[in-house]
């Protein structure tokens, strides 16, 4: 399995975790960050199933979710599930780094969530 390529940024002054990158901390305006990786499982913060897909997707629907990892990193990703009926806010998700779309013939990798069995 490919390593998750997300890099998050923890402010060395106040500890606030950022993803994506900011040049200054959203909390204290500090500029010194420790690079951290998402750790552990993610908790499902919210999700939606979208049917009107933008250019570049050739499928019937997508489930998009925001998850929060155990070290506080929050990130958006695609959620792999047959249907949304079994999803619950707060449920535990496994995360992996998978192709999420194809642009100009090139596969783009990104975060893929899956409900933990």
């Amino acid at each position, binding site marked *: 399995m490919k390593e998750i390529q997300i890099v998050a940024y923890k402010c060395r002054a106040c500890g606030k975790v950022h993803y994506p990158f900011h040049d200054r901390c959203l909390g204290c305006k500090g500029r010194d960050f420790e690079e951290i990786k998402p750790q552990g499982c993610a908790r499902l913060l*919210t999700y939606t*199933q979208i049917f009107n897909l933008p250019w570049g997707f050739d499928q019937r629907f997508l489930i998009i979710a925001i998850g929060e990892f155990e070290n506080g990193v929050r990130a958006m990703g695609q959620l792999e599930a047959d249907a949304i009926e079994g999803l619950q806010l707060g449920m535990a998700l496994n995360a992996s780094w998978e192709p999420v779309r194809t642009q100009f013939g090139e596969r783009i990798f990104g975060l893929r969530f899956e409900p933990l069995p």
Partner: protein
Amino acid sequence: MRDVAIIGAGMIQFGRRDEDSLLDMLAWASLKALDDAGRGESGVDAVYVANMGSGMLQHQTGIASALVDRLSLLPAAADTVENGPASGASAIKNGLLAVASGYYDYVLVAGGEKMREVSGWRATDFVATLTHPVAEYPYGVTLPGMAGMFTRLYMEKYGVTREQLVQVAVKNQRMGALNPYAHVEMMITREGILDSPHAIVNNPPVADPLHLYDACPVSDGAAAVVLCSLELAQQARKIPVLIAGFGQATDTHTVQERDDPTDLKAVTIAAQQAFARSGLKPEDMDLAELHDAFTILEIAESEHVGFFPKGEGGKALMEGKTSLGGTIPINVSGGLKARGHPVGATGVAQVVELVWQLRHELPPERQVPGARNALAVNFGGFGNNVLAFVLRRVDQ
């Protein structure tokens, strides 16, 4: 700083306008506003044009320069203003500050967008470029998708129901059917989109828990206003409408980085600034145009601007408080939901509608009787750049 008033307002019908170019629409709305201001034979000092996507959608840039040429307003200063779906209000803000500072006396602000020229998936992708290019866009999230995730959280936290969302759609399409400028002039019923066996066909999900009729249409259209100092406005032929207060605030680009993603902080701050600068309060407003690109936003914004406590907006809606005849009619124009949402035009169209309301020029079936004060909220991105105006009728 000088007080600034609106002395002219014009608009063309929103909808699918295959035969009209973006410049056609901007020019026609501008001429209506100039004529309305009594400046159809003269000029303005500056022009601000709100547009989000002509470079992507029409392969044309420099829209403001093209418009002043088309309208023979040369040598007026001209700038194009892009702030996503809040471009219209941003352009008005630029005009407001330019006149208030004393640099210019007369300013034309026009907003326009031509979105139906491209396929639905291209238009969806165009609007989705507002999302974060690394942390959001690659996943295929769309603005309806952002709204769907927000709705799920808002329902969970505040108990907003499907019935309440449907009521926003029914109310606004009822008002849109009375508005000759609206894109969607079709009334709908709760039964047709919620209760009947056919509802799932009529109103399929687009971004769960949002359905088709929870979303505004993709539209072509344009609107324009003419601004000048209040002193000059007193000599104009129409009742001036004072821009009594203005506010603008931003929030994180990604929704996930907000401590509470249901908290539309930029809406709250922009509205508070506008109220503070006007010396008026939410309870002084006679009506409001809120940015209901999705039904949930009308409910959430009605709470965030201070009309109702958090969690009470849906209840107030169901009690008729936000309908024409209620305590604070919202989106009497039909809102984005029915008037349509040509993104660059919307913020200007909201103000045009309120100018007509505050001048008491609309037919009785959609005029708020005796309206004196009004609020407009134009919502950019997914709440990451929001503008608010408090407008006040100036009796002469």
